[in-house]
């Protein structure tokens, strides 16, 4: 159970530490993160546990089936994984104020809350940089079309349209 006092500390950290770090983090990424990745990462960070978030990041980092234009994504996840490890130090410092040893569950919850704050700042900056064309390689800033097939694709064939 995270106390109100600990939540206040998380908010403070989010404002004065995590926000500038997230901005700096995304500035080190060559290209905008596609919308599909934003949705995936946001969903996992909002609905899952810290262990599951770590598993998701690890999976994306080690995935080998990226398209050529998505070659920067594994590096993003590699750096994110390292960053989240660094953020764990904040969780330890917040937990220091507790008298007893915090449970693993509380520790994981706290880490997740910090990771969530960081990821939300990262994704907001990612969207902003894409819109203002501030990336180093802005050749792929139209994320709305990312992940969609190229050319005259008109959606999946309907049942009626298929050859019987």
């Amino acid at each position, binding site marked *: 159970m995270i106390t109100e006092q600990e939540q206040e500390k998380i*908010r403070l950290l989010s404002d004065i530490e995590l926000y500038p770090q997230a901005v700096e983090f995304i500035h080190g990424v060559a290209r905008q993160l596609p919308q599909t990745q934003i949705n995936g990462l946001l969903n996992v960070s909002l609905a899952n546990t810290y262990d599951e978030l770590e598993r998701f990041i690890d999976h994306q980092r080690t995935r080998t089936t990226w398209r050529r234009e998505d070659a920067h994504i594994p590096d993003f996840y590699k750096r994110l994984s390292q960053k989240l490890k660094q953020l764990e130090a904040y969780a330890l410092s917040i937990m220091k104020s507790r008298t007893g040893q915090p449970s693993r569950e509380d520790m994981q919850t706290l880490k997740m809350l910090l990771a969530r704050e960081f990821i939300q700042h990262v994704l*907001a*900056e990612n969207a*902003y940089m894409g*819109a*203002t064309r501030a990336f180093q390689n802005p050749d792929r800033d139209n994320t709305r079309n990312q992940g969609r097939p190229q050319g005259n694709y008109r959606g999946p064939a309907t049942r009626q349209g298929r050859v019987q």
Partner: protein
Amino acid sequence: MKKRIELIIRVNKEAGSEEFYQKSQDLGILAAQSFREEQGRERQQRHRAQMTGLENIAETTLKVTDVLDYVKKQTARQKGWQKEVGANKERFGEVLKKEIESGLKTFVDNVCNGFIEGTTDDVKQERQEAYLLLVRQFIRQLVVRYEYQVSQVEERVRS
């Protein structure tokens, strides 16, 4: 309790200063310019919703960075937020982000000088609260100016 009352008084005083007021008015006018070119009642209502959304997030959140994240996301999503307007070709989203990130710092310093000082976490939290209260005041004033500006334009169109 006494300290909190004093904080509110100090924030209100700072928000009423000429420089602060002028900044919020300029941004309200910029918002109206950014969104007014969109024609049709439905679209105008949608832009009102942009201002209401901004005000809502500022009033309900406990973190300044939630407001900043909202500004960034809206800038990425909505054309009006990134449209270049006026002789200086300013973009509403960009200018608002800059004001919140750095433009309001002087006013936060003015509120905190001789009142909230030190380096402990408690002091930092109080400073953040002063910052958030100023952001809320700034956005309130900006939205009111936006509404006034839009109503003036509508009045002119009608007459």
